[in-house]
């Protein structure tokens, strides 16, 4: 089992969700996040005074999947989130040693699907 964590542009969330549904991935958690990477921030101004916004708004997706879904999920996230410009985001894949469904007590692969 893997845990796929992706940071994407907030306005691409809709497209990513669509691509994931198309790939048969219906489960995800979404949280708001702030972050900075290669993309430089942007300038805002307040009452005439300019300031740099360094931490940009991002959306964090977390999806736990079985091995056979890893590639499909990653491909779908890329399909939905990619614009080709700096700031599209990153995907992290980490090992997931255990997964338990609270309602039934199911463990492992059965619990995740």
């Amino acid at each position, binding site marked *: 089992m893997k845990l796929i964590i992706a940071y994407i542009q907030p306005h691409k*969330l809709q497209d990513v969700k669509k691509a994931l549904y198309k790939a048969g991935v219906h489960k995800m958690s979404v949280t*708001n996040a702030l972050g900075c990477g290669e993309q430089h921030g942007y300038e805002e101004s*307040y009452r005439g005074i300019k300031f740099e916004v360094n931490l940009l*708004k991002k*959306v964090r997706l977390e999806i736990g999947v079985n091995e056979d879904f890893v590639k499909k999920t990653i491909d779908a996230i890329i399909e939905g989130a990619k614009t080709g410009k700096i700031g599209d985001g990153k995907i992290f894949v980490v090992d997931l040693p255990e997964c338990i469904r609270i309602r039934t007590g199911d463990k492992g692969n059965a619990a995740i699907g």
Partner: protein
Amino acid sequence: MGLIVLAFTAGPVFAESTGAETSAIEAAKEELQININVVWTCVAAFLVFFMQAGFAMVETGFTQAKNAVNILMKNLMDFSIGTIAFFLIGFGLMFGVTNGLFGTTDFAIRNVLGDGEHWNYTFLIFQTVFAGTAATIVSGAMAGRTKFRAYLVYSVFICAFIYPIFGSWAWGSLLNGNGWLEKLNFCDFAGSSVVHSIGGWLGLAGAIMLGPRLGKYGPDKKPKAILGHNIPLAALGVFILWFGWFGFNPGSTTVGNGEIGRVAVTTNLAAAAGAIIAMIVSWLKGKKPDASMSLNGALAGLVAITAPCYTVTPMGALVIGSIAGAIVVLSVLFIDEVLKVDDPVGAVSVHGVCGLWGTLSCGLFNAEGVLVTGGSSTGLFYGGGFSQLGVQLVGAGTCFAWAFGLGLVLFYAIKKTVGLRATVEEELKGLDIGEHGMEAYSGFQIFTTT
């Protein structure tokens, strides 16, 4: 006999002294009445001005957080630009001596700078806030995707030309003009057509030229909800508008007498009925009493009663408001689902469609004979036949053709010159950052739900 003699001998003497006294009293009474009229009309103008705040809150509340600064800026600027455009050009076109189509004098009210009674100044401020009301309706229909620059250009044209020229046809004789619609006895007391439909139909033209917001219609063409981000603000805005309408309608008498109360009653009844019926219809259609529809319903009642507020009975007002409450819900759904025009706040339904209904309702419910208003306009339901209804149809139809037609031309011209629609990226990130470099809710975390 003695009395008659006395009357003959003493009569002229008495008459002379009381005559002078009476005329002095009459003059004082007249001056007092004029001043009461001025005070009332100014108070009403200030109430109508406050409706700008109402519109700003309704539109902000019903749209997304990422566009809040943008819509507030539009509301600020359409009134500010509109005020100056109306002062310099619009007022003269609307109320100057007419050439048959529009007024040609009184620009920047330069003829009355020394006016001792200052009625013209009072009249100007009162008419300015009305023009501002028409202008500010449109921003709601075009919310969330319009280039700010395009909106500034539009603001000049509505208050300088589109609003005042139609206004001169219906209301020109309130000062020096004389319009062809009012000669036909067109009834639009406070502006269901002149103010609200003009704004509503222009909004419709703008929304069509812009196209829907991204994500409003799915691939299957079904409409999706793009939720308003602050219903408390929207509700505050509706209450402010309702409050302001007590200046809009009763103020349009421009006379300080008992008619203020009468018009306030019809206005309030229609608003209340509109809210209740819109709630019921939305409850029946959607299984829950929808707050945003009920709020729109109150406004629908207010818009509808604006034309007939002076000429219908309280019972008539109740019926007019009720029907408006039903119309607005059905119209919002129709425009959204059938026409597929994206009107984020329902401005076209509230102001365009219910303004149309209010204008026509004069032809059905007018009862000036019963009310003893001095006029004689009588609608179909009070035995007046179809003549008033026919005139109302002509007026409302002209209003639609004028505002919608010119709106399409204007927004097409803007599209081809300064550009009408914001870029895709700007729209997705929100116009606040793209257009104004500022967030509405800095320090708050706005959750992305789309």
